[in-house]
């Protein structure tokens, strides 16, 4: 039962969304990155089958054939691993998009992006 981590998650979400509401495209992407972190932590905390475990990595000990029952839940960890890598891919793509857009428009102000025609 953790109270600290939920607060951290809440703060991360708040800052992420605050950044996403800004007019600068770069801040939007930073917000995206924060959102990814926040969501990963959310799954980590909320989906853990045995709660948050300290000191019990999901590894079967040497010599055993079955895992101890005190280890952390491996399933959310597997999901988050996938999420981290894909989040990185999305971020890279967003940055590349930003690069191209900046070349085309000259500014990172979202309000300048309201039409699809060239100026």
């Amino acid at each position: 039962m953790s109270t600290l981590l939920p607060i951290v998650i809440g703060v991360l979400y708040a800052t992420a969304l605050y950044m996403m509401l800004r007019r600068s495209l770069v801040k939007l992407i930073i917000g995206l990155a924060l959102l990814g972190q926040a969501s990963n932590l959310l799954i980590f905390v909320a989906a853990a089958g045995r709660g948050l475990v300290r000191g019990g990595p999901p590894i079967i000990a040497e010599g055993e054939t079955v895992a101890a029952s005190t280890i952390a839940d491996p399933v959310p960890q597997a999901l988050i691993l996938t999420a981290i890598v894909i989040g990185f891919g999305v971020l890279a793509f967003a940055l590349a998009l930003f690069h191209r857009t900046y070349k085309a428009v000259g500014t990172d102000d979202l309000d300048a992006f309201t039409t699809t025609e060239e100026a």
Partner: protein
Amino acid sequence: MSKWLLPLIPFALFLAFLAAVPGASEPRVIELPLGTSEELGTRLSFRLDGLSILFALLITGIGTLIYAYGTRYLAGRTDLPRFWSYFTLFMISMLGLTLAENLITLFIFWELTSLSSYLLIGIDHERPEARDAALKALLVTGGGGMALLAGFVLIGSAVGSFELTSILAQGDLIRAHPHYIPILILVLLGAFTKSAQVPFHFWLPAAMEAPTPVSAYLHSATMVKAGVYLLARLLPALGGSEEWIAALAVAGALTMVSGAVMAVLATDLKQILAYSTMSALGSMVMLLGIGTPAAVQAAIVFLFAHALYKAALFLVAGIVDHETGTRDVRSLGGLRRLMPLTATAAILGAVSLASFGPVLSFAAKEMMVMAIAAAGEWRRPLEIAIYTSAVLLAAAAALVAIKPFFGVIPSGPRNPGGRGHDPSAAMWLPPLLLATAGVVLALIPGPITAALLAPASAAVHQTQERLYVSLWHGINAPLLLAAAATAAGFIVYRTRERWIAIAEPLGRIGALGPTAWYGLFLRGMNATARAQTRVLQSGYLRVYLMIILVTLIALVLMANAAGGGIRLAWRLGQVALYEAVVAALIIAGAITASLASSRLGAIAALGVVGYSVAINYVIFSAPDLAMTQFVIETLTVILFVLVIYRLPRFSVLTPPPQRVRDAVLATLFGAVITLLVLAAQLEPVRADLAAYYGANAYVKGHGRNLVNVILVDFRALDTLGEITVIGIAAIGVYALLRMRPEVRP
């Protein structure tokens, strides 16, 4: 040469249905093993009985003639493959409609006929009038179709089945059912829109924008009769109640009269014929409303006769248009010398239109009058309606046949109406055949009555009443009245100008009629859609985000309030110092990232957040996650720096009030999430999966690292998808950055 293969399709079908005629009195149901759903009650089942065979023969027989006519009439068009595809689609849909045994199957074909009619009316899609007419037809008949579906569903739920055999046997049940009135209204909406009854008639004259073969086939002989077919088909189930009689008799009579009035006042050949079709449909609906065996018989015979002569007249109109270049009766005249064969067809057709003479429609008219005479309280008003429309239709007939062919050639320099010649056989033969059939079958009605018309009407009124079709009933009141009506009609024709002048002011009232409402509805819908889009789709991302956020927060809070509030346990528990430090680092990093004014500072703060989260993973027993997170965070920071470091400092773009608003909204959302996570922690989470993987990873997967075994063995398919995604993202980045830059002017 290949175009002559086209009429063979309907002809083959015609012969196939002819073969089914001998068994017409015994309904047979054929079911195709497709699309059957027991829960929904849908089946692809078809019914062969008198009524459906009659319609099938009409559709395929008249279809054959129109296909032949069309190969000549439409020569020179560039879109012939498209035209014939749509045309054949229509024929098949119409066949499916009339042969359907399952109501849902019927509905599907019903909508298909609306669709193919839309495609055919708008085939000259370059012309805005054609497009508008097609849209009008589609919206009206489509709207009726939706109502029809609702009505069918109600019938199905009342009876417990969508099969006609069951439904027709449960007529009393349906009539006594509490849903009877809604069912009636909905089904009537569908039938009336399709068969152009007042006030849904206005799409039919507009549909004359279609090429003449389409008008002849769809809008006179077959499609518009679909509504009449439906009413006839469902008569045993829905008919006989006071509401049925009243609704159909009133609507039918109104349509009959107004159609006849508008026919006389029109000047375009096809418009005159369109309005007279409307009137004919009205009389059929009226007769089905009365519903007695005699009335039903009259309706069936009239339906058959009408199909023959109306198609013939439309084809004649097409010939006149094709040869002289105009359809305006005011500029046509004296064509009988130039196109004698066409003229013959026209005269025979017109005699049938006026329903006075040795023609099948006259026999039908007599039957109609006699049926109405036995109709009790409805007798007087309906008789007035019948005779009024008889007068006007006779005038219209004269307008169609006498004026163009016998009338004086109007003078004028560039008047095209006086030239032309008989077209090729493919074009004059079909109308002549059809019009002559109306005469021949009237003189020798026996075979067709016994084989076709009797089983058809028996299928509707379901009694043993015998059908007796005869031209001559002796000199009686109906005969004399018919003669008088025709004579009066001729007088109206001669004095047409005076009547038109009288009708002038009435026309202005007509401008407020259904067509105007349709236009209003269309414009209103477009305007509303535009306004709503302007508000909701403003083009600003942050507006969309805010709408999503506010809705989310509101819904979550509402759901929680309704569910009795969130139970929280504010136990801080055992928190080690390093955990608190890491948490503080994350929070500090996040806040710095959002408030930094230098881009690099924001990115650095992002890096702090990422690394702290990684340490967090270490603390809470996720070594794989931690390692991956460390490396990914490094790469992320590198990427950010590569893209951003050349840009100028962040500028403050948003004014303070908006920033406060955004901050409040974001904080609110964060608080909601925190509360949700705290509440979620109180719920017992099942650990079965953890236990399963713990027990099986080494035994079955030969591995000790549970996370890895899950990723590459137990859930390898997900991982396969994931690496595909990351590959695609990389290729996307590569492609984006290789594009030639667009240079800003």
